[in-house]
């Protein structure tokens, strides 16, 4: 390592950013206020998210076009009539995404207003379990726990919720509440087990939750073979329908399938926000997630908080189960969890483990899910949505990549430029009347270069400190992102 300088070099994207910053700061005078403001907007994270979605749609478009038969046919005579090929590509992509939009948000072709707006209600319904389960996983991620068990927690919650729903007979509102509590309890138990094992024996929660997913799946398959859980007169394994008293009411009337669960999901988002950002327990959980050793040193009971984090996580997955059982499905099958448990992982990741972000991500993925059925008519498969989802999350998790593709500025570089501009102005002032614009410029440039280097050095020390821990920021995307930018 003879060629290693004293200051560790930045990784490629940072290096580039630093270079561009230096280039911009050195020769020209400090950029104007308007340019800076524009750059700040361009470097903002919401634009980045938007660009990630656009890129993902582009990738999906390539996939849709490549697998389309008309496009494939037109490739064979591409050099004779390239127009045909382009027209076919455009046609299939446009039809696919138009169908996605019509299925997820608004259908202008429908004959009545209610039918036009129904897709939006479908989106809200589809996003409800995703929001619940995603919130649960987000709590785990913030506490540094990688809970893959939402699927199993959802299944166990559904078992208990459905059983209370069809086997008990209670008065109207009470029955709904009790069934809801049953589902929450089921999920919480299935979250408590890995929490307890993690706290008491140090068992890795990733393994335990994966195994519990399978156990829950076989468990529900077994229960459905029992007479107590079988609907008479049906051949396929399915429980009786839950009582009408236990079902969630439809909030927009009978023509839309959006149920009370969606309102509860909004409330849960607020509750989780309060829990994580404003409560003592949330502070402990976040501390645990940032650095378990420091948290322990500070007197936080890590064991108890691991158990709490996973139990609450499971309880929220139980709410997702309630949304399924009491809202949409009304009876238990072994497929009750669908792929919600796994989709919720990407939802929480996309939401950067923040409650409001998870809500937004849940709505987006709900829209993709609701729209995918319409899109199927064009693409012959709903699975292209999985590709869209994963590409979105992957790109949002890697801001430098999106920046490199769209050449938008790095927020860190913009911040440095702003600081440099301010310092240059100050320097010019202190130099007083003698100070020419020239000296102010050079001073500014020096400060800019300086500022860049010190932030780099700081970044390096931060990272080294982070690396001393076993897993610096294994949880939320947001943290790794911030870690890179601090």
């Amino acid at each position, binding site marked *: 390592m003879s060629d*290693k300088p004293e200051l560790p070099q930045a990784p490629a994207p940072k290096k580039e950013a630093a270079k561009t910053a230096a280039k911009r700061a050195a020769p020209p005078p400090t950029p104007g206020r308007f340019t800076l403001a524009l750059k700040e907007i361009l470097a903002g994270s919401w634009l980045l998210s938007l660009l990630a979605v656009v890129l993902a749609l582009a990738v999906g478009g390539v996939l849709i076009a490549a697998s389309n038969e008309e496009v494939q046919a037109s490739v064979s005579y591409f050099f004779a009539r390239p127009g045909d090929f382009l027209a076919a590509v455009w046609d299939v992509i446009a039809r696919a995404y138009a169908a996605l939009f019509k299925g997820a948000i608004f259908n202008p072709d429908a004959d009545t207003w209610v039918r036009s707006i129904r897709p939006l209600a479908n989106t809200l319904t589809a996003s409800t379990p995703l929001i619940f389960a995603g919130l649960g996983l987000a709590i785990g991620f913030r506490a540094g726990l990688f809970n893959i068990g939402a699927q199993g927690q959802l299944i166990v919650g559904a078992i208990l919720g459905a059983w209370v729903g069809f086997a008990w007979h209670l008065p109207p509102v009470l029955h709904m509440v009790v069934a809801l509590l049953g589902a929450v309890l089921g999920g919480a138990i299935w979250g408590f087990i890995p929490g307890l094992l993690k706290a008491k024996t140090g068992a890795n929660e990733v393994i335990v939750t994966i195994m519990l997913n399978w156990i829950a799946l*076989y468990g529900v398959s077994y229960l459905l073979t029992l007479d107590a859980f079988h609907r008479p007169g049906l051949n396929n394994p399915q429980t009786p329908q839950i009582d009408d008293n236990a079902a969630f009411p439809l909030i927009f009337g009978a023509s839309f399938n959006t149920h009370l669960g969606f309102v509860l999901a909004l409330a849960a988002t607020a509750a989780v926000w309060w829990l994580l950002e404003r409560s003592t327990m949330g502070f402990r959980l976040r501390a645990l997630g940032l650095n378990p050793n420091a948290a322990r040193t500070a007197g936080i009971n890590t064991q108890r908080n691991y158990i709490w984090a996973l139990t609450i996580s499971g309880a929220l997955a139980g709410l997702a189960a309630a949304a399924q059982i009491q809202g949409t499905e009304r009876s238990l099958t072994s497929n009750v969890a669908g792929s919600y448990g796994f989709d919720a*992982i990407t939802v929480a990741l996309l939401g950067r483990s923040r409650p409001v972000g998870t809500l937004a991500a849940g709505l987006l993925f709900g829209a993709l899910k609701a729209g995918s059925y319409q899109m199927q008519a064009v693409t012959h498969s709903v699975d292209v949505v999985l590709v869209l989802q994963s590409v979105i999350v992957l790109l949002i998790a*890697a801001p430098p990549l999106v920046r490199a593709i769209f050449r938008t500025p790095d927020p860190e570089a913009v911040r440095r430029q702003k600081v440099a501009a301010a310092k240059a102005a100050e320097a010019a002032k202190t130099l007083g009347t003698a100070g020419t614009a020239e000296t102010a410029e050079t001073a500014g440039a020096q400060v800019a270069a300086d500022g860049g280097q010190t932030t780099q050095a700081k970044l390096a020390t931060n990272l080294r400190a982070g690396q001393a821990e076993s897993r610096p920021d294994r949880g939320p995307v947001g943290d790794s992102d911030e870690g890179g930018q601090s």
Partner: protein
Amino acid sequence: MTSALLSPAKGPATEPLASPLAPISYKAPVAFGLLTLIAVGGFGFGLGSTARTKFSLASKTDFFQLPNFAVPSQFAVIVLCVLMMALTALSFYSALNRHKTKAWLASLFGLSWVLAFMVWVIADKPATWTIPALLAASLSLSIPLVFGSLTGLVCERVGVINVAIEGQLLFGAFLAAIVASVGGSAYWGLVAAPLAGALVGALLALFAVKYWVDHIIVGIVLNVLMTGLTSYLYSTVLSNNPELNKAMQLPKLPIPLLGDIPVIGPVLFRQSLLVYLMYGLIVVLNVMLFRSRWGLRMRACGEHPEAADTVGIKVNRTRIRNTILGGSIAGLGGAFFTVEMGLAFGKEMSAGKGFIALAAMILGRWNPKGAVAAALLFGFANELAQMMGTMNTPIPSNILLMIPYVLTILAVAGLVGQVRAPAAEGGFYRD
């Protein structure tokens, strides 16, 4: 000297030095005692003295046939229970002396417990335990797990958490099926599968090492991406062009003398090229990981990247290369689902095996021997459950299928407990 410093399994350096004596841990003897009680109470009683359990050691193609035999069930269970009690006592004794329970003791205990269970579960039933078939099917089920866990091992030892094993297996299976169908020979599948896995590994390396995205996030997302991509192409391109997705099977290549050994011969040495590659890989990794420059360097990058950097190892380059290498191993394992099983590609056919492989690797404490043992054990438990499902046993088949997963949880919680991953795993490094 260096290897002692870098090997993660050695000496817990951070443990407080309050007591010079190791603490007495009764975990193992208590677990053994409980299991023995279950065996005595559950399997010992209720068997009539005339009950017999039938075993068979023969495979259909044997050169000379071993006869089937039946053991008196009650007597066999009692003998095994006495053996288990003795082993429990031995384990208790070594715990009193502050020794850890030895691995051979635990294995012997496990073997006797499983045998007692097998004797009990089909006592007095027409069914027969065909041991070679059981073992062969277990080995077959554990092929993707072995490949997957070795992938996890290579990646994590170099400091990159690989949760994308599932996606690598799936994409390996996908490309193996297509290339084998197009090329007209199943062997083409073995060429394509590692490339597919390496491609996923390269994506993982790109995002995790170059762009500093949290490793677990990349892994999970790559799994979703591969599931979506393969399922989408399966239901569009492959269903429109069935000639791209034909069922091809690797031929079995019996090894002359070894294949004729009774019982284990047909199990181990009448296999396809993929299985022989797996044997080779296990041996090579076991040796190379701890006794080669490559192994030392990669372990250094996973344990202490700064130190590795100081002596001139390019940390990120090493990480990227080994992550891609690891991916290709899992990709090869993915060939199991299509060309080894003789099936065409199907949606999500890896069915969570990649995650179980990950569990096997952690269960094996990031050690190739342990990972392979855990993978084989899981395959065995799974096959045992599946076989019993067809035998009209007193336990419902869904409950039987849970057993491997319950056992894994027990093993993780009871035997392994707090494991120590490579120190710098999941971290980022600039060089």
